[in-house]
């Protein structure tokens, strides 16, 4: 009997996976929205419970006659409102905040995160489409950032300190970042293609190597002599991606570390990459390899070369992310590079590994990052709890996509299994025999 219920459970789980795999884009969007709502509800309960356990002078909210230290509605309003820089007036009778300015810190922070995550998310997504799981975007970003930080600093002495010089430096910086990240990404690609080394393992190891090697290189050769910490000499301002407000009377504030140009570049890049994957011969090879390696081989795709180029491309995009981080955010290379590369994995999964999907996924991440800062400042909710709320939203929204990815593997695997078991004759060729 237990066997029966087991197989029954297995069957319905597989059916559910199959249904997930077959979802349309609109259905997936609806599921994501429903997941967001569900995460907010679950998070709300958590806030209430912790608000009951915590001690405070006055209750922030009273429900059913019981006082709570934190008000979940307030927390989520502040979270999303904070990401917009306080567009809505939360406590006033008026809907909008009359003092709201489009170019505010909150929105700058949201968009800064979004911009960087677009690049790292794309990096992971490209590899995914080629059937490769690149965990190494973080390492590729670190190497790309270092290449940019060092090259642009030395080159800045050679070009005029003008707009022309700046354009030259930034172009150079992005190119060098792409090359650095690309070469670093090609290493696990080559290891996989020619030594059959699993790219998940090698990229994880290369992440550690990247951080340590960059640290040693900077502290030994490129260290800023005026600084106590391990960092390169700052790049002069004219070579950086500064906010528009540095030259025009409007724009995002200087301290927001966000440049609209970088975001536009990121959006154009998404389009270009979408075109590359969906419309070109290279993209065709890449997608075929990712979906069905045997069919790719049949179609004349050089599997080894595609593995190396896909990983190099993925690494190059990660490297550009590093370049943008240096040129837009910190103005130099410094240790403790934030984990944009790892967040990129979740962004990519959230986006269903579709380049176009990376934009909303990165925006959601940016919103949560910026909004949780606002929650910390404007409510008494501790930082750790805000982290939990963020995690819940990401978990809930990413899970359906994650299961869909998993499902496409499992369902494929399952059909393969059928082919094997119905294969009556040949010894090692599964043949086209499941039509027997």
């Amino acid at each position, binding site marked *: 009997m237990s*066997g029966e219920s087991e197989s029954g459970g297995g069957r319905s789980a597989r059916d559910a996976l199959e249904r997930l795999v077959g979802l349309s884009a609109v259905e997936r969007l609806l599921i994501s929205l429903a997941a967001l709502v569900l995460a907010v509800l679950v998070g709300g309960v958590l806030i209430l419970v912790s608000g009951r356990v915590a001690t405070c002078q006055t209750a922030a909210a009273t429900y059913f006659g019981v006082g709570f230290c934190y008000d979940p509605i307030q927390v989520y309003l502040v979270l999303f409102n904070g990401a917009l820089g306080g567009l809505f007036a939360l406590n006033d009778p008026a809907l909008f905040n009359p003092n709201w300015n489009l170019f505010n810190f909150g929105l700058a922070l949201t968009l800064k995160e979004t911009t960087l995550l677009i690049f790292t998310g794309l990096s992971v997504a490209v590899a995914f489409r080629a059937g490769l799981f690149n965990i190494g975007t973080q390492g590729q970003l670190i190497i790309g950032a270092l290449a940019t930080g060092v090259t642009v600093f030395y080159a800045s002495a050679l070009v005029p300190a003008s707009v022309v010089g700046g354009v030259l430096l930034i172009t150079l910086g992005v190119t060098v970042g792409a090359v650095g990240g690309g070469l670093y990404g090609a290493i696990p690609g080559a290891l996989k293609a020619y030594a059959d080394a699993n790219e998940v393992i090698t990229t994880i190891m290369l992440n550690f190597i990247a951080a340590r090697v960059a640290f040693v290189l900077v502290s030994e050769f490129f260290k800023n002599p005026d600084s106590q910490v391990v960092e390169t000499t700052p790049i002069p301002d004219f070579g950086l991606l500064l906010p528009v407000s540095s030259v025009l009377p409007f724009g995002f504030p200087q301290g927001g570390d966000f440049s609209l140009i970088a975001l536009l570049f990121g959006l154009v890049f998404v389009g270009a990459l979408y075109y590359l994957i969906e419309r070109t011969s290279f993209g065709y090879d890449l997608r075929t390899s990712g979906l069905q390696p045997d069919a790719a081989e*049949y*179609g*004349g795709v050089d599997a080894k070369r595609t593995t190396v180029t896909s990983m190099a491309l993925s690494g190059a995009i990660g490297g550009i992310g590093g370049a943008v981080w240096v040129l837009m955010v910190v103005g130099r290379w410094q240790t403790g590079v934030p984990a944009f590369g790892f967040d990129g994995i979740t962004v990519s999964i959230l986006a269903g590994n579709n380049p176009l999907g990376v934009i909303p996924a990165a925006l959601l991440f940016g919103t949560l990052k910026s909004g949780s800062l606002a929650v910390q400042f404007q409510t008494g909710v501790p930082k750790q709890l805000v982290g939990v709320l963020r995690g819940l939203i990401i978990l809930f929204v990413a899970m359906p996509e994650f299961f869909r990815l998993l499902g496409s593997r499992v369902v494929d695997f399952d059909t393969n299994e059928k082919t094997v078991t119905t294969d009556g*004759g040949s010894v090692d*060729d*599964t043949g*086209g025999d499941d*039509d027997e």
Partner: protein
Amino acid sequence: MSTAVHLDGITKRFPGVVANDDVDLSVERGTVHALLGENGAGKTTLMNILYGLYQPTEGTIHIDGTARDFHSPRDAIDAGVGMIHQHFMLVDPMTITENIVLGNEPRKWLGLAVDSAQARTEVRELSNRYGFDVDPDAKIEDVSVGVQQRVEILKALYRGADVLILDEPTAVLTPQEVEELFDVFEELTEQGKTIIFISHKLGEVMEAADEVTVLRDGKNVGTVDTADTTREQLAELMVGREVLMEPESDYQEPGDTVLGVQALRAEDSRGVEAVTDANFAVREGEIFGIAGIDGNGQSELIECITGLKTPTTGHISYKGRDITNAPRKQRIDDGMAYIPEDRHERGLVMEFDLTQNGILGSQHSEPFAKGGRIDWNRVETHAQDIITEYDVRPPNKDADAESFSGGNQQKFIVGREFQRNPDLVVATHPTRGVDIGATNFIHDRLLDLRASGKAVVLVSSNLTEVQGLSDRLAVMHDGEIMDVVDPSTVTEEQIGLLMAGEHIDDAERATIAPDGGDR
């Protein structure tokens, strides 16, 4: 004697295909019963039904005279039916004892711990009872394939199996191990166990089985006592005699050599030699057929020619150049079309629509791609042309390949490959799963290609097809090309013998050698 297994009118339909068509099968207790048939005849499907992996569309299963309804292998095991798959399901780093008791371990301490001493004793008793020579403490990874197979058999016996199903048990064994396996069969049947084994090898069926049931196209075409039959009769039953069509194949003088294969050897994916010293040449305006029971090296030979496999030794030349180690893409670009054996894994990307599948292999070539960019309008027209000309149904170029039936997938692949304007067509089972009308169409196109001076290599397990279309016919057995014969004078019996690995004597051979037979 009593009937251990009785299958009554089993029909199994998969979407678009009938795998088993009203099959009856009776197996007496204490006998060895062989299930013989070509690849795709429905043998494994039938056994998977008996083992509860599939549920029959129609028909009933009787075990020891009682009707049974199997929803899962667990039900089958409970009824005393065990199956040993072609691919062993053993845990390599664990010992033989651990593997045998896995999932049914004797327990101690209120069921909290495995009683390994008890397990070892039970396994030793079991293996002694059937005269199996296995060391209960050896690890699976350290023992030979033959022993691993015995472990699989013991596993089934440990779970109380009275009926053992073995799927192609000899495929992985050396000749000595095969002999040992047949001794095991004898021991088991003497103790009242019933054995059903799947095979497509005539020799071992004659040697090991008491009775044999032949399946063809999912139907039971006859159950005979091995004492009352001959290899020739079995071959005839297996291959079938009905002639679907008589293609008019006007002989023409072949031209220059397009494809040359010299002293070619190749291994299969397990590293066992699968092609032994193949030599032949295919000329312009000629269809060179390769017949043989599936799994006798045809796949490996073809993969070497098309660039999916690297031969261990030997040479392949194409249009006067050595291409032994040339990449697959170069061969495609040089005008080699290939209808692969496995359309789901190779021939089509199942999650691509037909538009995208229409350029698989030519995704870098003009006119579909220029400067790395694909001209999708042209690609769509191309897919539409294939769909119209080859009558792919439903005629929807935007539907994913996986949504089409096997026959329509095949028509699309054939269309795509023929439209390459190739110099050489390598076609493996081009009409498998395709309806009669489309089959005739594909055959006519193959003859058109030949008439326009192209070279064709045709591999098929359908003897009528390969004999009717070919100008010269090679017969393969166990990796070796037994002979190259003239298909218009050779008899099916003679082909059957060659397929079974028997040579034809010289006097007889003189009458069937092809003109200018350059073997």
